[in-house]
């Protein structure tokens, strides 16, 4: 009993199905043959083939396939609604166009939804951050301490220094004889504004030798 020999057409159809992802321009292929092959396509493959076949219109073959894809993607209810709408308006639109329109509509709605959520998340994060304790990089100067020391030359200088080394140096300086003397002299100046000394000796020369740093001024000194 001889087995039926497969026809060349059948062999070709099988090969075409096996190589469906390589199909592009199907040109003038018979529609009934295309029907057999394209029913094995997935959406991307069908789209590619239709787009590559510029010379002829494949919609008589592909329209029912697009309807199937529509139903799978968007559900039977939506499909029925579209069918009803077309019937009422007495128009028919290619299912591929219906599919693409619905898809873009859904993508737009999804994008808006994501944008809204992202915005809300950002607002919430900002709100939380504004309530957090923040670290400052600079210490603001404490002006209140300055005001509490009314006397002493350079007292405010000591307490405004940041380095303890400088602090020590400044304390020593303030306590040194020279600075104390100047402070005393300043006080005297205030009290003896109008009086003029009768001795009028320049005493600065003797004094100058012991503290050359000081600027010598011609005023009276009391020993």
């Amino acid at each position: 009993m001889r087995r039926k020999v497969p026809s060349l057409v059948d062999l070709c159809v099988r090969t075409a199905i096996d190589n469906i992802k390589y199909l592009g321009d199907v040109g003038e292929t018979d529609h009934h043959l295309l029907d057999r092959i394209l029913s094995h396509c997935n959406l991307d493959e069908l789209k590619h083939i239709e787009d590559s076949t510029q010379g002829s219109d494949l919609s008589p073959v592909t329209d029912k396939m697009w309807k199937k894809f529509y139903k799978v993607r968007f559900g039977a209810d939506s499909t029925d609604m579209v069918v009803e709408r077309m019937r009422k308006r007495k128009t028919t639109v290619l299912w591929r166009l219906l599919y693409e329109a619905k898809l873009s509509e859904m993508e737009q709605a999804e994008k808006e939804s994501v944008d809204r959520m992202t915005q809300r998340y950002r607002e919430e994060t900002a709100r939380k951050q504004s309530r957090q304790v923040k670290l400052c990089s600079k210490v603001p100067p404490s002006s209140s301490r300055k005001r509490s020391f009314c006397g002493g030359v350079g007292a405010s200088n000591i307490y405004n220094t940041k380095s303890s080394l400088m602090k020590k140096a400044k304390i020593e300086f303030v306590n040194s004889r020279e600075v104390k003397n100047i402070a005393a002299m300043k006080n005297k100046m205030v009290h003896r504004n109008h009086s003029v000394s009768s001795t009028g000796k320049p005493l600065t020369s003797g004094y100058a030798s012991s503290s050359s740093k000081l600027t010598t001024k011609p005023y009276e000194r009391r020993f």
Partner: protein
Amino acid sequence: MKKEDTVKLISAEGFEFVIDKKAAMVSQTIRNMLTSPGSFAETEHGEVTFPEISTTILEKICQYFYWSLQYASGKETEFHIEPELTLELMMAANYLHT
């Protein structure tokens, strides 16, 4: 091969393939051309020209004919088809009813 047992198939480019009549008869179209009385003018001298079928495709078709005879006689092997020939071969096979 005796001339009476062969036919000549001519491609669009003018290539001539001389094959057994028995092989050629695998194609229903060629069988009709060769057997029906008062048949096509082209087949008078046992020659058939196919202006729409290219040489590569016609060659493959002839290979199929012989493969088909082999298959029918019990030797079942695979008939390989190059992917790039598929669509064109399919259309020619459809035309030749084979």
